[in-house]
C-alpha cells in the first residue's frame, strides 16, 4: 500500500512524504510504518492508544470508510493519506455579554416603588439600575413547574424578570407538596400554571406571566420558546430534556439545565455562544426503566430548592452578563455528604445536533420516544400485563399465581403487598429457580416500569414460564378494595 504523509506531520517521519508498504490491511500497514518511525507513534496515538483527535486517515480519498476498513484486505494500489484534522473554536470561557441588548435595556423605566422594591439589587455595583433594567427586559421560559420550577419561578419573579413563561401540563397533587414549595394545600387539583400565575402576580403584578398548560412535544416546542432570551429546564424526564436541549440548540437559545435525584443534583448551561449542548455530554439517555424518575426515585425536600436556586442565579448572571458561569460545565451537588464538583463538558464535533456536521436539523424529524426507549420494541416479545382489576380478581379467585415484588425494602415499608415474594431485580437471574414456570408470575413495582425491566431481565436470562406485569404498579392498585379483605393493601 502507498502511504502519503502530510507535510504537517512529516517531521515525525524523517521527512518522508510517501512510502510504499507491503501490507494487506490498513492496520498492518500503519503498524509497519510506526515500526520504521517509532517517534511518530505519540503523534498518531494518544495515551489510550486511540487515534488522536487531530489525525484523519483517508483511504483512496475517503475518510468515512477507515472505521470499517481497518482489518480489510485491500488491493496493493490502495493509497492511505495521513492528514491532520484542522479545526478549532472560540474560547468558551470568554466573559459573557448580557443576553439583553442595550436598546432593550434603555426601553425600561422604573417608578419609585420599583426603585424601592429592587433596592438590594441596585446596591450591588455589578447590577445597579442598568442591570435591573436588563432583568426587567428579559423574557425567560421555565419548562416544568415542579420541584425545580418552584424556586426558579419564585426567584425570577422576586428578582423582577419582566416576562416569565411557565409550561407545565400537570395539576398539583398532594404528593407534590413535599418538594414543590410553589404550592399549598389549597392548590391541590389546580393546574400548576394557574397556581404559579397567582404566586407570581402576588409577588409583583407588573410581571408579564404567560402560563401554558401543555406537554412539550416536537410539534409545539419551537413555537413555545422562539423569541425568548433563555430557557430553564426544570423537567423531570429524559424525553423532555433532550427535546428542550435540541430545540434550544437549533433555535439558538441558551439553556440552564437542572436535574435532581434522591440526594444529588446537577446544574449546567448549554448552547451558549457556541458552547457544548446537553447531548455533547450525554449522547443518549440510559435505558428506559433503569433510572427511576424523581416521582419514582424520590428526593429530599430541600434539594430542589438548592438546585433550582442555583439555576435561577445562573439565569440572572446570564441576563446581567456578570461573573463566571456554568457554560460548558456541570456543577454536581451531593447534599447527603455535602460535596460539590464542577465537571467540564467538551463540545463534541460529532454531536448530531451541535457538531460540525449535524444530522438533526429539525426536532419534528427526530423520534424522541424511540430514542428514550419509551416505545415498545417491536422485535422484542410484547410484555403482557394485568390491570389492577384483573389482578384483584385473580387474587380473589385464589388462582395459582406467584406475585413478585421488585421494589426496594424502604418502598415496601410504605405499602406492603401481601402474599408477594420479594426478589430485587439484580438477583432475578440468579434466583429464577425460585419461580414455578408452570404458574403465572406477576411482577409488581411502584409504577409498573421497573417490573417491565424485571421481566426483560428474566427473559434474557432464559426463563421460559409465563410472565406478567402489573400495569401502573402498586400506585394504580392501592385504590382498589377487595371483596373479602377491605384493607388488603
Amino acid at each position, binding site marked *: 500500500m502507498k502511504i502519503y504523509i502530510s507535510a504537517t506531520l512529516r517531521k515525525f517521519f524523517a521527512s518522508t512524504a510517501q512510502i510504499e508498504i507491503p501490507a494487506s490491511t490498513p492496520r498492518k500497514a500503519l503498524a509497519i510504518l510506526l515500526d520504521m518511525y517509532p517517534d511518530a507513534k505519540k503523534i498518531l496515538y494518544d495515551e489510550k492508544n486511540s487515534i488522536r483527535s487531530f489525525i484523519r486517515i483517508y483511504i483512496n480519498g475517503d475518510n468515512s470508510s477507515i472505521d470499517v476498513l481497518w482489518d480489510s484486505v485491500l488491493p496493493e494500489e490502495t493509497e492511505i493519506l495521513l492528514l491532520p484534522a484542522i479545526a478549532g473554536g472560540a*474560547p468558551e470561557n470568554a466573559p459573557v455579554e448580557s443576553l439583553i441588548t442595550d436598546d432593550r435595556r434603555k426601553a425600561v423605566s422604573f417608578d419609585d416603588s420599583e426603585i424601592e422594591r429592587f433596592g438590594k439589587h441596585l446596591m450591588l455595583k455589578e447590577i445597579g439600575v442598568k442591570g435591573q433594567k436588563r432583568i426587567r427586559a428579559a423574557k425567560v421560559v421555565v419548562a416544568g413547574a415542579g420541584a425545580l420550577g418552584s424556586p426558579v419561578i419564585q426567584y425570577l419573579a422576586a428578582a423582577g424578570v419582566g416576562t416569565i413563561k411557565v409550561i407545565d401540563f400537570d395539576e398539583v397533587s398532594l404528593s407534590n407538596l413535599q418538594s414543590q414549595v410553589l404550592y399549598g394545600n389549597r392548590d391541590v387539583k389546580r393546574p400548576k400554571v394557574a397556581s404559579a400565575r397567582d404566586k407570581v402576580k402576588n409577588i409583583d403584578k407588573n410581571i408579564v406571566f404567560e402560563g401554558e398548560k401543555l406537554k412539550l412535544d416536537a410539534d409545539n416546542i419551537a413555537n413555545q420558546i422562539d423569541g425568548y432570551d433563555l430557557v430553564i429546564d426544570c423537567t423531570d424526564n429524559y424525553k423532555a430534556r433532550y427535546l428542550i436541549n435540541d430545540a434550544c440548540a437549533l433555535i439558538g437559545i441558551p439553556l440552564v439545565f437542572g436535574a435532581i435525584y434522591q440526594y444529588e443534583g446537577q446544574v449546567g448551561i448549554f448552547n451558549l455562544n457556541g458552547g457544548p449542548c446537553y447531548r455533547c455530554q450525554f449522547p443518549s439517555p440510559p435505558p428506559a426503566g433503569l433510572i427511576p424518575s424523581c416521582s419514582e426515585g424520590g428526593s429530599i425536600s430541600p434539594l430542589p430548592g438548592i438546585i433550582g436556586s442555583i439555576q435561577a442565579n445562573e439565569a440572572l448572571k446570564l441576563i446581567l452578563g456578570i461573573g463566571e458561569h456554568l457554560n460548558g460545565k456541570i456543577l454536581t451537588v451531593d447534599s447527603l455528604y455535602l460535596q460539590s464538583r464542577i465537571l467540564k463538558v467538551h463540545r463534541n464535533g460529532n454531536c448530531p445536533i451541535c457538531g460540525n456536521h449535524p444530522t438533526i436539523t429539525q426536532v419534528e424529524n427526530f423520534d424522541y420516544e424511540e430514542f428514550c426507549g419509551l416505545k415498545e420494541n417491536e422485535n422484542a416479545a410484547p410484555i403482557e400485563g394485568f390491570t389492577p382489576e384483573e389482578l384483584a380478581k385473580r387474587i380473589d379467585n385464589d388462582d395459582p399465581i406467584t406475585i413478585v415484588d421488585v421494589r426496594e425494602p424502604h418502598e415496601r415499608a410504605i405499602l406492603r403487598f401481601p402474599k408477594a415474594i420479594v426478589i430485587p431485580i439484580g438477583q432475578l437471574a440468579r434466583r429464577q429457580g425460585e419461580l414455578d414456570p408452570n404458574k403465572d408470575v406477576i411482577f409488581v413495582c411502584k409504577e409498573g416500569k421497573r417490573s417491565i425491566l424485571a421481566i426483560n431481565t428474566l427473559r434474557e436470562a432464559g426463563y421460559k414460564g409465563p410472565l406478567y406485569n402489573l400495569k401502573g404498579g402498586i400506585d394504580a392498585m392501592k385504590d382498589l378494595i377487595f371483596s373479602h379483605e377491605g384493607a388488603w393493601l
Partner: protein
Amino acid sequence: MKIELSKKASEQMDLAANRAYPDECCGILLGKVDENAEKGYVEVLEAREATNQIQGRRKKSHFEMDPLFLYQVEREIEGSGLEVIGIFHSHPDCKAVFSEEDIKYMVPGLVYTVLSVTKEGVIETCSSYRKNR
C-alpha cells in the same frame, strides 16, 4: 522559535478574516523554515484561505477545514521551495487567544495564527506553535 509574518501573508489573513466576519475564517500558512538559525526561524510568506466547513450559526465560533484541501495545496507547492508551515483562523468579536478546542487540534511543530476581528476590522493577531505533546 522566531515567527515572522510577511506583509503579504498578514494582508491575506486580514482580508480573509474581514470577509468571513461575523463567521470564522481559516486557511493555510505557507513559508520557509530555517532550521540552522538559533532556536529555529520561520518565515510566513503566504496565507491561503480555505472554506470553513461548519454549517449554520456555529460558524461564528468554530471552524473546520477539509483535510483534502491541505492535501491539494501540499501537492501543488511540491518543489516550489514553499512549505506548509501552519494554520490560521479568526475569532470574530473575541480575543486572539487559543481556545481549549484550538489546542486540542494543534499539531506539534506547526505555526498557529489567530486573528481577533470585529466589524471594524482585525484588531489583534497572535502567532504561536506547539512544541510537543
